[in-house]
C-alpha cells in the first residue's frame, strides 16, 4: 500500500553464489572479530576506575549547607509535593533564639527523610527546591542489606559542615 512518495524497498535480493557458499562470509566475520581484539577496551575496571558522570547527573540526594555551614532547607515542602514517587517526608520546626548558626531560615526541617526504595531519581525535587537545599549529586546510591537502611534521615543526607571539616 502506498501512502507517500517516500517509500523505498529494503534490500531483499536473493543470495548470490558468493553468499551461498558462505566461506567469504566466515572470513569477513572472523576478520571483524579479530580486528576488535586490538581495539581499545570499551569497559572500565569499575571499583578501581570510575566513569566520569555529567555535572547534571541525578544520583544520590544531598542536603546542602550555605557558606557558613547553616542548613539551607526551610521546610517549605515543595520537594515532597513535587515527588511523583512520594518518597520524601518532612516535619517543619521553628528556629529558636540561639540557633541562627544552625539554620539559615526561621523555619527548618526537624525531620527530613527520603525513602530510597521509593525514589525514582527523576530530579523533580531538585528542580522544585527554591532554596538550593536538596540536590542530586554525582554519586550513585550505595547498596545495603536491610530495608530500613534505605530510609535516609537528615544526618545521612546533609553534607559535612565546612568549618568542622577544616578543624579536623
Amino acid at each position, binding site marked *: *500500500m502506498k501512502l507517500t512518495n517516500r517509500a523505498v524497498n529494503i534490500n*531483499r535480493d536473493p543470495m548470490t553464489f558468493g553468499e551461498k557458499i558462505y566461506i567469504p562470509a566466515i572470513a569477513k566475520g572472523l576478520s571483524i572479530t579479530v580486528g576488535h581484539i586490538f581495539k581499545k577496551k570499551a569497559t572500565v575496571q569499575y571499583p578501581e576506575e570510575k566513569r566520569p558522570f555529567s555535572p547534571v547527573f541525578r544520583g544520590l540526594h544531598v542536603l546542602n549547607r550555605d557558606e557558613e555551614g547553616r542548613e539551607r532547607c526551610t521546610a517549605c515542602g515543595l520537594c515532597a509535593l513535587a515527588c511523583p514517587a512520594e518518597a520524601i517526608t518532612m516535619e517543619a520546626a521553628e528556629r529558636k533564639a540561639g540557633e541562627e548558626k544552625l539554620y539559615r531560615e526561621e523555619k527548618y526541617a526537624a525531620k527530613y527523610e527520603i525513602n530510597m526504595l521509593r525514589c525514582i531519581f527523576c530530579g523533580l525535587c531538585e528542580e522544585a527546591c527554591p532554596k538550593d537545599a536538596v540536590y542530586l549529586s554525582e554519586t550513585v546510591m550505595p547498596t545495603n542489606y536491610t530495608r530500613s537502611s534505605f530510609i535516609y534521615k537528615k544526618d545521612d543526607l546533609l553534607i559535612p559542615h565546612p568549618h568542622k571539616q577544616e578543624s579536623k
Partner: protein
Amino acid sequence: MSEQQHIQLAEESLAKQSTTLNLGPTHPATHGVFQNIMEIDGERVLSTEPTIGYIHRAFEKIAERRPYYQVTPLTDRLNYCSAPINNMGWHMTIEKLIGIQTPKRVDYMRVIIMELARIADHLICNSVVAVDTGALTGFTYVFQWRELIYEIYEEVCGSRLTTNIGRVGGFERNFTQVAWEKINKFMDGFPKVMREFEALLNRNRIFMERCIDAGPISAERALNYSFTGPNLRAAGVDYDVRVAQPYSSYQDFDFKIPVGTTGDVYDRYMVRNDEIWESYKIIEQALQKIAALEKEDPAQKHVFYAPESDKYHLPPKEDVYTKMEALIYHFKMIMGEIAVPAGEVYHGVEGANGEVGYYLISDGGRTPYRLHFRRPCFIYYQAYPEIVAGGLLSDAIITLSSLNVIAGELDA
C-alpha cells in the same frame, strides 16, 4: 514401605498428542516478562495463549492523581528503550492542549534527541534478533554506541535510562558544549560501526536463512490489528506518523521510509536497519539547521524553550532565589496550580516501536481527568499467536524479539 502412588491424570490429558509448554514469564529468550502457554507438536507451534499484566502498574490511573509535570516520569517507563520519545510525546500533547508553538531550535533539538532514541531502540532490537539467532558478537559492538547515546541523554537531563527529559515548551536546560561534542562524536564514529554490524549480519547466509519467511504477517492482517511503526512498514505499508501528521517540524526534513514486502523477521530487521540510517540523516540535517539558525541570529543559541510557555516552564533558578514574583510563580507551578484549559486532545508520535499516542481529557483541573496511552506493543502482542501459529518454536522466539515487544509498553 509406603504404598505406590499413582498420578491420576485426566483422560483428555492422556489422549492429547500435543505438549503444553510454558514459555515465560521469566524465560531468558523472551527479553521481558512475557508468558506464553504454547501447545506444541514436536517443534511446531499449534496455538499460543499469551498472558499480559505481569508488570501492570496502573499508570493511566496514577496519572489521574498527578499534576501534568509529574506524569513525565511515568511515560519514561513505557518503552524504556527509547524513553525520550515518550517524554517528548507527552510534552507535545500538553503543548497541543494549551496551544504553545515551540521555536524551531527547540523542535530541532527534540528531533535530535528523538532520533538518537530511535537509533538506540533499533540497535537493541536488531542486535537482540541477532542474539536470538545465535550471533552474540554484533550485540557487544553496537552496545558501545548505545552507551554513547545514553551519555548524551546524561549530559542533557542527568539520567540514562529513565530520562524524564524535556519540559512543557522545551527543555529543562540548554545543551551544554559537552553534549554537542558528544553528539558530534556520535555522528563521526557511528557509520563505521553500523557498517561493521551490517557486514556481520545483513547478507550472512545463516542469518538470512534463519530469518526469511519466519513469522510473516500480511499488510492486511497487520492493518486489521492496527499495527504501526516498523512492523507495519515491514509488511509493506509506508505509514509513518512523522510524515502523515508531522510534529516537531518533521516536515522540514528529507528522509525516506523503508518498507518491506512480506512482514517476516528479515523484513522487520532490515526496515529497522535502514531506519537507523534515515535517523542518522535526520540528525545530520537537524545539526545543519541549528547551525544555520545560530549563524543567522546568535541569540538563538540561548533558546531552549518556547517564550510563550513562561506560564508553564519553571522560571530560572537565579530568579527564584532573588525575585519574589518568580518565587511565587515557582511555588504555584510546582503545586500544579497552573491553568490548563479543559478539552480533549490526542497526540501521536512515531515511537521507535510504532505510534505512541496520548489521549488526554482535561477538565481544567490540576491533573488529567483521564489519560490513555496508546502503546504499540500492546497491539503487536495481540497478533503474536496468529503470527507464530504453524511455525517452529525457535521462530516464535525470534518473532517475539523482532516484533520488539517491550514489557513496559505492553502493560502500562
